[in-house]
């Protein structure tokens, strides 16, 4: 597997009222061709920042301080505007969280589709694309303004736009979070199917672990602006090696047993003013020891995944014990 996206040592700072804060703190990530990678974490963990930095779609107050982002051989950090535009147009496809704001409210869908496809596509070509995104009545959709569509339909339009030029990578930022629960799965299936048909890679930014476990080959868990654990979905989600991953799973609804309580993660994610010299999760971690407050854990391989925790082995053991205890 060759790397389609490679992010190294990426530091992104946000300029704000009380000085700059770090959105990414030496984050590392790679995405292989054809795979689906999910990035999970709380709000403020840096998952949107890292996802959007792949297309350099960061808000104006964000600044890339150091590091490299290579997407399909293009160095995104220092590429010129025209090449960046072509990269976005031809090789990347974005699906955003809120389909209602992601479409131009004053333009009919067919014209927006033309913008996405490029050139002068025929009426039938647009209709076909919409049908591929499982919109039953493409004619009506094409004539509509965004406000005349339901959230699910609008998101399917966005998906159709994202795959219009057969991108090599689809970046989906919470693609189903703003949709009704009843249609989330279906929209996600459509997105997954279209990705497969195109042979594209996909990066899903999400906090919905159930969705992630079903659709992603690999999972990256982000905390404090870096990836703290990354590996095969099954490995990471069933036997987490980072205390934060474990806490996320315990806090997620859906895999508890009847009568079992969900455990909220206490405390709040850190606000970084500069590079974090310790484990960013230390203040909230139940397993924290003095070492955690003194040295920053670097990524290392533990039980078939990369993890940034000084005591990953213990966590793995504890979770497998708990897992066994649960199955007993």
């Amino acid at each position, binding site marked *: 597997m060759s790397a389609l996206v490679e992010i190294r040592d990426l530091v992104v700072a946000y300029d704000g*009222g009380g000085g700059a804060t770090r959105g990414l703190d030496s984050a590392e990530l790679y995405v292989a061709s054809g795979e689906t990678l999910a990035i999970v974490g709380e709000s403020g963990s840096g998952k949107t920042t890292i996802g959007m930095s792949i297309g*350099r779609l960061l*808000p*104006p*107050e964000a600044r890339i301080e150091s590091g490299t982002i290579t997407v399909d051989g293009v160095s995104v950090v220092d590429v010129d*505007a025209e090449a*960046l535009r072509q990269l976005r147009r031809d090789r990347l496809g974005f699906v955003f969280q809120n389909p209602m704001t992601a479409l131009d409210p004053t333009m009919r869908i067919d014209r927006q589709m033309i913008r996405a496809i490029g050139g002068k596509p025929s009426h039938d070509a647009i209709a076909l694309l919409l049908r591929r995104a499982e919109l039953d009545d493409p004619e009506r959709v094409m004539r509509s303004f965004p406000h005349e569509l339901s959230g699910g339909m609008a998101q399917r339009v966005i998906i159709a736009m994202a795959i219009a030029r057969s991108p090599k990578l689809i970046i989906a930022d919470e693609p189903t979070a703003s949709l009704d629960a009843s249609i989330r799965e279906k929209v996600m299936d459509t997105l997954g199917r279209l990705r497969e048909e195109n042979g594209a890679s996909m990066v899903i930014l999400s906090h919905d672990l159930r969705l992630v476990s079903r659709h992603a080959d690999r999972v990256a868990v982000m905390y404090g602006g870096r990836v703290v654990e990354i590996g095969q979905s099954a490995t990471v989600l069933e036997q987490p090696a980072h205390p934060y991953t474990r806490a996320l799973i315990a806090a997620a609804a859906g895999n508890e047993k009847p009568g079992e309580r969900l455990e909220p993660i206490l405390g709040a994610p850190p606000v970084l003013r500069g590079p974090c010299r310790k484990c960013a999760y230390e203040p909230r971690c139940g397993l924290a020891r003095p070492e955690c407050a003194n040295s920053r854990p670097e990524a290392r391989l533990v039980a078939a995944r990369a993890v940034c925790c000084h005591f990953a082995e213990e966590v793995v053991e504890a979770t497998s014990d708990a897992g066994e205890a649960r199955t007993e």
Partner: protein
Amino acid sequence: MSVAKSIVAALCRLMREDRLSFLGLAVLTLLVLIGLLGPWLPLGDPTRIAAGPRLAPPSWAFPFGTDELGRSYLPRVVEGIRATFLLSIVAVSITAVVGSFFGMLAGYFHGVTDHFVARGADILFAFPAIIVGLLVAAMIGPGQVSAVAVISIATIPLFIRVVRSVTLSVAGRGFVTASEVAGATPWRIMTVHILPNILGAVIVQLTYAMSIGMIIESTLSYLGLGVQPPQASLGSLLRQGSAYLTFAPWLVLSAGMVLSLAIMSVNLVGDAIRDAIEPLKGRALK
């Protein structure tokens, strides 16, 4: 009141970082001080006739020249600053009280109240200010009272609209609903919960109303419908000087310059407050 604190902090930062905002505040402070201290400043007697030659151009003795009666023009302009500011402040205070009251009423009670207030504002808004000035002058005669009335009539509908929309957004928030559920009276909710939260918007709108007021005052007085001679306002000085525009332009130009500076400083301070409360975000296409 931590909100107010952070706004003041943002304002201070703005003043340090942004030269134009700072300039606005500095000029405004200077003009207000001059207006307040005018009578005690060693500028000369504004009423002394034949203090110098008639219609003399600016000189060291008479920095703004002299008028047709040989009065030094600088102290007259200072007097004018005072009158113009004072009139606008009085009018805008009336606007602030009346406009905030009706705006909050409309925004909080919705329904019939809202309709009545909104239509009232529409009706007032339909009258262009200076044209109202003509009507008011016909009714109660030209003078300071009619200038104040016209400024209020022109600014109240603007005020009502802004306060109404801000109140609407505040009234929908949780803490208002919570105190309604707890049984607070509408009056208490409006004064205790809503007013502090719309204060920022009210202050911004006040500064804009202030600058509109100064424009209206000067225009009315220029037309002879506002402040009457011998009392000086910046507008009545413009009127007085306009008769000699071609051969003693310093009269109109000095009063006009000071007037424009005053309005600009009020506008800049208003912009700065608005920026501090709600920073305008920009984004360039890269």
